[in-house]
């Protein structure tokens, strides 16, 4: 914080035009992580085109208006963008004080889903109808508050300089904080979100510097737990089928196997350059279910081909790469942990979502960040971008 800082502090320089000030060396705009922002915007816009392509013919869900989903997707993106600006404006440190309230609110919303207010979509009881055709999926927000809550607990002693690493008590508290909403989400049952949360927990713990014993202990417990769940038939049959059918579509040819097959056909038929936007016969013929949300990547695969699908993966890579940098560059453990949590979240959710359309991951109901249609998801990921930006903006400039 040398030259530029003093320049600003002096305040006696000539009055400069607004846009110049905005881009001054130490200004907020200069400090923002532009690659992440541009990549996120690009993903959202690509998403809107894909969502439009997938829904313009689906008269049974678009209320006869081919632009119904396109407009809503853009609206969601706009709201998400505003949420990001708000988050940056407040700053992640300010938000730190509000974390208990946010956490409490999100858990309350998740609980609300279990009441008669909640609705079921595709076998998962994860939504709250709020009238006007809008609905909330609180598990999306829980992902953010788990990251924030855990990071706050784990980093508070370290950032204060009291300890080098979080102690066991803190880790137990943090885990408890995560497990409560995870159990509730498990009851919905929204297995995909639980998996994402588990990965988030792991990422946050890793970044917080918690003891190796915790990390490997949790990994081991997760493995044993998964085997137990499988052996003790705790999961519903449809969930087991979903897990098995991605590898062997014949296991459930009319159900999950059908999704997997049609998704793979759609993507596979795209070739290098795809059939052209709005030209995909699999998409036009609506052979892939849930194509505007969970299977949105198949639209890109079929209509834009390897180049389009690769571009989406590349853009997600940019976001993740920058997020990793932000985690590495942050001077405080809180910021590092939050950024790492977000990386774990985005990375796993993207991998799971695209992976299931490519037939290498089991089919779960997870949206592709920025691209899939869905308000709650869109708001959550943009808030996450805001958090990343805030961490980036508030680190020392030299870093």
């Amino acid at each position, binding site marked *: 914080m040398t030259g530029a800082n003093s320049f600003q502090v002096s305040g006696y320089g000539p009055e400069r035009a607004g846009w110049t000030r905005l881009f001054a060396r130490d200004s907020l705009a200069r400090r923002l992580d532009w690659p992440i922002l541009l990549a996120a915007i690009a993903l959202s816009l690509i998403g809107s085109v894909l969502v439009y392509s997938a829904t313009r*013919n689906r008269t049974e869900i678009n209320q006869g208006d081919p632009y119904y989903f396109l407009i809503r997707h853009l609206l969601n993106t706009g709201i998400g963008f505003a949420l990001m600006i708000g988050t940056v404006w407040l700053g992640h440190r300010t938000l730190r004080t509000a974390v208990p309230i946010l956490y409490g609110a999100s858990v309350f919303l998740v609980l609300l889903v279990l009441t008669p207010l909640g609705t079921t979509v595709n076998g998962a009881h994860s939504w709250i109808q709020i009238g006007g055709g809008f609905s909330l999926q609180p598990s999306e927000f829980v992902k953010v508050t788990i990251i924030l809550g855990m990071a706050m607990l784990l980093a508070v002693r370290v950032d204060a300089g009291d300890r*080098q*690493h979080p102690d066991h008590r803190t880790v137990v508290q943090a885990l408890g904080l995560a497990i409560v909403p995870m159990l509730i989400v498990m009851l919905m049952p929204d297995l995909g979100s639980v998996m994402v949360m588990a990965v988030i927990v792991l*990422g946050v713990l*890793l*970044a*917080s*510097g918690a003891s190796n014993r915790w990390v490997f202990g949790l990994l081991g417990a997760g493995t044993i737990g998964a085997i137990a769940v499988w052996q003790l038939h705790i999961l519903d049959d449809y969930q087991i089928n979903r897990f098995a059918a991605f590898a062997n579509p014949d296991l459930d040819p009319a159900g999950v196997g059908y999704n997997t097959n*049609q998704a*793979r*056909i*759609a*993507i*596979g*038929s*795209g*070739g*290098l350059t795809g059939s052209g936007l709005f030209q995909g*016969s*699999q998409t*036009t*013929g*609506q*052979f892939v279910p849930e194509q505007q949300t969970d299977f949105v990547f198949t639209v890109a*695969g*079929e209509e834009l*081909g*390897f180049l389009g*699908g*690769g571009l989406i*993966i590349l853009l*997600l*890579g940019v976001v*993740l*790469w920058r997020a*990793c940098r932000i*985690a*590495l*560059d*942050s*001077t*405080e*453990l809180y910021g*590092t942990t939050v950024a*790492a949590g977000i*990386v*774990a979240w985005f*990375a*796993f959710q*993207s*991998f799971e979502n*695209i*992976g299931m359309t*490519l*037939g*290498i991951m089991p089919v779960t109901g997870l949206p592709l960040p920025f691209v899939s249609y869905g308000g709650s998801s869109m708001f959550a990921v943009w808030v996450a971008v805001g958090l990343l930006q805030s961490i980036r903006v508030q680190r020392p400039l030299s*870093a």
Partner: protein
Amino acid sequence: MTNIPETGRTPRVQTRLIVIQVLVLSLLVTLGGRLWYLQIREGEAYAKEASGNHVQQVVQPAVRGSILDARGVPLADNETRLVVSASRTELLKMKDDGQGVLTKLAGVLGMQPKEVMEKVRLCDAQTPQPCWNGSPYQPIPITDEATPRQALQIRERAEDFPGITAEPQAVRRYASPGEANTAQVLGYLSPVTDDELQQAKDSESPYLRSDQVGRSGLERQYDKELRGKAGVTRYEVDNLGRVIGQAESDAAEPGSNLVTSIDARVQRVAEYELNEAMKAARKEWDRNTNERYKADSGAVVVMEAKTGRVVAMASNPTYDPNAWVGGISAKDYAALTGKKSNYPLLNRAIQGQAAPGSIFKVVSTAAAVQAGYAFDGRYNCSSSYSVGGQVFKNFESQNHGPIDLGRALEVSCDTVYYQLAHSEWKKDGGINPKGKPKDWFYKAAHQFGLGKETGIDLPNEVTGRVPDRQWKQQYWEANKDAWCKTGKKDGDYVERIAYENCLEGNKMRAGDEINYSIGQGDTLVTPIQMATIYAAIANGGTLYDPTVGKAIVSADGKQVSEIAPESHGKLPVSRQALAQMDKALEGVATRGTAAWRFADVGWPQDKIPMHAKTGTAEVYGKQTTSWFATYTDDYAIVMTISQGGTGSGASGPAVRNIYDALYGVSDDGTINKKNALLPTPQKSLPKIRTDGSITAPKISKDPAKEQQASQKAPEDADGQVETAATVQTPATGNRDTRRRQGRRGRRRMLT
């Protein structure tokens, strides 16, 4: 532990962040790699799968071509029925899934709404019949018996009946013009099987589930040509089967018409006369078995002698080919295929085989000439011929003294052929021949085309059998175990035969060759084979592949591909011997065994030279088979009646009547051209206009009965009647009386 200076972080955290970074990167690389694998490496396979996903075919049936007789009279054509169908794709677009429309439709058709709904629902495991098991994109027929009034109601109020069509559709009909049903020659159709459906699925011309496929006769032989090519419209559909676009389509091509050489009128006469002859035979007493003749089956073939084209082919018992139309009932099917009805589906002209009896003697005569016996030589026609204690009798033990081969044919002298065959058998080395026997008699049979198919354009022709050494060996090997088991030296007739067969059934015994020389024993021939042979004798020696199909004419009449007569060989007879044989066979008709059917009863031999040979074949345990083989310059007619009696006796009148009909010969031998159905073979093809209509002459209700009626009153026809001139018969007594006797009376005579 030193912390990282810039961030104040412990190395543990730093390391872990890098691990996270690497993990994230590897996940992304995995996705990229998998994407490359699916889209670039395997892309083509998936593209193919995708295109199969969303295209549905709708097949429009092609109208089956007609089968016409030589003058264009349809023997099999299509009848138009009004079919009301519903399009599911259209119905499902409606709010109530078309229930309202179907209910309204039921009202118009006078059906129950439930009945109509059941017809359009799709079959699946839970849905019992009635239901539609075809393609859901295919219009589903609700009724094929709509009245024009109902069809009009539906069409005029099209807006009230969206998705409903009332259109005329073609259904096969066997018209039986002039009562000629031609059943076995035409064959029949039956629904396509699942296997055929599956096989033709991806071919040029896929079947419909409702399609009919030719199963026998011409319908089968020319199925491909008659069937045409179904039209295919390809629709792009979405996952719910809703049509979202139309891909390329091929229009249906109607099937070609098959012009046959059959003349419906002659066919009718042949069928009628065959049936009458069998009825008459059943009234006759068989002195050998002491019961009436059974006359259980019979066949007649009328062939153009110079081309091998079949003008008429009748087989009895017969059936109504319309029984197959619209699906045969189980009862009808049982009746058609049962033993009780004696298998009317069999076309006995090509699938019935029997020992030929004396009509085989033309083969033996040719063999003898080939073997070096002079046609004009003198051969003793004794009343019997004995070989090693076994006595072979002449028919009814007649003795004609020394005669030449021609006379032997005329009077059908068995003993002459016995001698010839026996001396050849001895020359060949007797029971244990050394070296390669000449086997003239057997060789000749093969050269005459026996023992193999004639190649007629009808499916499932049988070969008959020439019982030569090779066959004997095979037959013996197949049966010796059974023979040796049942055979007894001193048992009854069957046991003794089995005993002998066990010992030397593989050897050519003298008795075998002697029996064979007069067409008895193990020899089997089909009527079509004998017709081919006698036609060849008539035309100077060319064995033609018999044909029923004469030309294939496209539906619009523009493309005509004629089926040219093809030969499968020449008779192994010198020109001179053939002429002598021809003369001898004429002698049969004028003064030999068939004279009482022709020359003696007013046949105008000088105008229409008739040649004939009679045959009466003995079958162990059965009554004799009647054979009658005849020819003129233009036609050869062969008739046979199983268990029907003698050749000229049972079959003679019928064959004479067919000739009368062909040439317009009256009972008194006058020729009335007006009554002649086909004095020379039909040369030109019928005209088929571009709109598909066919120029065909009117055909009377029953040419057979008319022909009979015209013969009854020859005196009424005045100027146009020319009286037969000299008839080469020792005409004694009243010719008319004899004629009547000949036509109506049946008496045994030598054959």
